[in-house]
């Protein structure tokens, strides 16, 4: 093991750290901000909010997205809501409780100081979004409404129908548009970041490809913000958008940024089950459904009756049975694992038997169809469109699917990676969710990082760093551009027999079977071998149509799958290294007698941050020890 990593957490009591930090940092004079350019890659909640806010402060911002418009980043698909400790319902919520629930929900594998800051900032986010015109749900009296989410016993989730992510993202997008109109943000759409440019040890720019013309471009700045989301698509099937990928983060990793806790992935319990081999993605049904839906399978193995023909006493409401105090609202990892067990026992339902029921009959009887429709109407419609079944009449069939990745590039308290000047925000970093993210916390984190953290920490970096004069003719730019071009040429020159999608699907199967909901040392070792063989085959036999000089989705995806083929192996190695079960990382060797996850705080209360050491070289793990000074580590119990 290499030397431990320091997160540069400020001194003082937990509650005072963020204020102490803000009191002590260096500021950039308002007149000087316009002399500094910042690159922001990605326009989701983290990137959009960061770009808009930094531009408002006076920095020159160059913003990049792979979609045709900054309004389309995958944050837009988040359905359920955003947490904040407003305590409007007067049900006992506090900043401390939000902090505590998030740390506990993450199974004590996140950094106290970051999570507490997140909880402190949460309330300001709601204020900001409402002021932008985000239509959060309201009560008849005109006040904001809240609902409850998994892993919490208070109602602290603000929501905008079943499309909270969309409305929050449009708020950030519109704030960006305001800055685009004045030229404070220069927007580069349909651009993919292919490499990070490091000069004298500092992140100074990026290499991009114009996805329409194929042109390779160089961009220089004083700092680079990576807000490029998660890597769930390494599993091929996930709830992520098709364009979501790890490429920007992975290429920074190859340039020296450590990748932390890659094995911590979240399998979301309520998704629409797979229907066939042609399946291209999975659709999530918001966790909020578990407020009013009851999860069950038949008690009898192999019961093939229709759900309406199975009487109540022959149904097993297994979450309510095993976890009486949280019931259907247990955290995601617990709900997912239990669905898997039910199906493993042969009690799965539907054509494939890889599904469980989520039943609204009782809620519809109690609250009426109108109330249920008001709460979840658009989700019920979406379900019916995809499956052809009406969930008001028959229970939904659901199954877990890869949804979110808690791991990501390692960052310190200032959200700075191990490369000075490279900051990582939102899902792309590892910092706030530990081994498991609670529902409605991703939107909170993305916006906290972008609206309220980075404006301070970036300012401190810029004010205290003296960068050398450089332009895009610098050798580091030339070298990075050459490498990016050579990689594209190499991919196109292979002209083998298997398509990019076929390789991606093969990788996904290896990952789902061996690095999925339940892992073993044996399976993980198998995965390392299989992935490395598949990677070699990919580079000899992939077939990419067309040229690099035009819009070519297969070429884009080829580069991304090549990176997933490296990341997948690192995920398996990380899971193999972590000899414990924590949150979304469940190792079968480490469980209690009744099948619950068994953490090992003695040996594994650390962040595992991996250093890239070269092509086909074993990566090196560095540890950041997690000091829990304010919470007592307990076994998570939702019983």
């Amino acid at each position, binding site marked *: 093991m290499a030397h431990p990593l320091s997160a540069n957490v400020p001194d003082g009591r937990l509650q005072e750290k963020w204020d102490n930090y803000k009191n002590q940092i260096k500021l950039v004079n308002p007149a000087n901000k316009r002399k500094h350019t910042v690159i922001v890659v990605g326009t989701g909640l983290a990137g959009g909010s960061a770009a808009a806010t930094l531009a408002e402060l006076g920095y020159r911002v160059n913003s990049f997205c792979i979609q*045709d418009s900054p309004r389309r980043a995958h944050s837009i698909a988040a359905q359920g809501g955003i947490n904040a400790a407003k305590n409007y319902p007067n049900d006992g919520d506090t900043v401390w409780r939000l902090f505590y629930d998030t740390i506990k929900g993450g199974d004590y594998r996140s950094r106290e100081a970051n999570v507490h800051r997140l909880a402190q900032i949460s309330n300001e986010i709601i204020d900001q979004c409402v002021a932008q*015109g985000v239509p959060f749900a309201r009560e008849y009296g005109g006040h904001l409404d809240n609902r409850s989410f998994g892993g919490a016993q208070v109602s602290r989730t603000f929501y905008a129908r079943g499309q909270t992510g969309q409305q929050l993202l449009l708020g950030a997008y519109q704030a960006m548009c305001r800055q685009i109109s004045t030229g404070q943000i220069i927007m580069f759409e349909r651009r993919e970041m292919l490499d990070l440019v490091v000069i004298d040890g500092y992140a100074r720019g990026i290499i991009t490809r114009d996805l329409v013309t194929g042109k390779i471009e160089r961009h220089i700045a004083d700092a680079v913000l990576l807000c490029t989301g998660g890597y769930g698509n390494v599993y091929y099937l996930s709830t992520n958008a*098709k364009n979501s990928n790890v490429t920007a983060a992975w290429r920074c990793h190859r340039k020296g940024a450590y990748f932390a806790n890659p094995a911590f992935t979240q399998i979301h319990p309520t998704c629409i089950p797979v229907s066939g081999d042609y399946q291209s993605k999975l659709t999530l049904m918001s966790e909020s459904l578990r407020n009013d839906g009851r999860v069950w399978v038949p008690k009898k193995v192999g019961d093939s009756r229709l759900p309406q023909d199975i009487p109540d006493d022959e149904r097993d409401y297994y979450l309510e049975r095993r976890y009486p105090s949280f019931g259907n609202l247990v955290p995601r990892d617990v709900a997912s694992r239990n669905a898997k067990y039910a199906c493993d026992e042969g009690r799965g339902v539907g054509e494939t038997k890889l599904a469980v029921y989520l039943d609204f009959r009782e809620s519809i009887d109690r609250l009426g169809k109108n109330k249920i429709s008001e709460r979840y109407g658009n989700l019920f419609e979406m379900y019916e469109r995809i499956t052809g079944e009406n969930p008001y009449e028959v229970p939904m069939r659901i199954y877990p699917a890869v949804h979110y990745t808690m791991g990501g590039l390692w960052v310190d308290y200032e959200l700075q990676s191990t490369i000075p000047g490279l900051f990582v925000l939102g899902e792309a970093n590892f910092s706030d969710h530990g081994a498991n993210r609670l529902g409605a916390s991703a939107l909170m984190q993305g916006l906290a990082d972008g609206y309220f953290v980075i404006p301070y920490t970036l300012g401190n970096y810029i004010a205290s760093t003296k960068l050398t004069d450089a332009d895009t003719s610098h050798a580091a730019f030339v070298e990075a551009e050459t490498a990016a071009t050579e990689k594209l040429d190499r991919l196109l020159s292979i002209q083998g027999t298997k398509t990019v999608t076929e390789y991606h699907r093969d990788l996904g199967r290896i990952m789902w079977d061996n690095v999925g909901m339940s892992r073993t040392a044996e399976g993980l070792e198998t995965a390392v071998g299989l992935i490395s063989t598949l990677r070699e085959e990919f580079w000899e036999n992939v077939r990419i149509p067309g040229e690099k000089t035009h819009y070519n989705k297969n070429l884009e995806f080829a580069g991304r799958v090549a990176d997933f083929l490296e990341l997948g192996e690192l995920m398996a190695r990380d899971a193999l290294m972590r000899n414990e079960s924590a949150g979304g990382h469940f190792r079968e060797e480490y469980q209690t007698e009744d099948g619950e996850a068994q953490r090992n705080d003695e040996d594994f209360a650390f962040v595992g941050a991996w250093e890239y050491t070269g092509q086909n070289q074993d990566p090196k793990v560095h540890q950041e020890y997690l000091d829990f000074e304010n919470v007592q580590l307990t076994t998570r119990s939702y019983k």
Partner: protein
Amino acid sequence: MSDSMTIHLRVWRQAGPESKGKFVNYTVADVNSHMSFLELLDVLNEQLIHAGDDPVEFDHDCREGICGACGVVIDGVAHGPQQRTAACQLHMRHYQDGDMLVLEPWRATAFPIIRDLVADRSALDRIVAAGGYVSVDTGSAPDANSILISKNELEGAFDFAACIGCGACVAACPNASASLFTGAKIAHLSGLPQGRPERKERAVAMVEQMQKEGFGDCSNHGECEAVCPKGISIAAIAIMRREYMKAKLA
């Protein structure tokens, strides 16, 4: 139970913005009825790549009907036959064995074709940049409950805020007008207290930007409302006109 079908496709192929396009016929066998329409295109593309041909390019991302990236005119209808459904949410169970589908990109002067079914919709972003926002710097917001908004007012504004910016309204309009898109944003923001201080400047700037981008004017055909995957009401256009008139008269 899933059934297997054969589907014929007549697809618009165009190499680039300046190239001349044409229709090309394809057949896909073994189409599963649970498959989505975009998955049908995926299967077609795998078939084309294996045969050494160029795949059909189309924009897509979330495949959940919310990002607004996808958009194909299917048999003359933007997003296809199912109402209130983006192309990605259309499933093949609505078709029968042997059906022929004609696929075209969004067609409008303001949306140049990039390749095949991919159009450049950046004009819509420029309309929003002209004024489709509330000018509030981060950090300056009052407490979220300090301004009460009645549930009805809120829900009314939300119906317009639900726009996904896909551009189907433009593709469906005989005048290629972006009035439903522009009107929806104006109606969303002028429908909430937070958006009212700037309502006049916003309405004028957004309407004028729409004209500058080369979109046509509205002549009340209502095609936009009919194809909108989010069911946005044409009332948005009436609100846009009223907001514009009020701003100009004042």
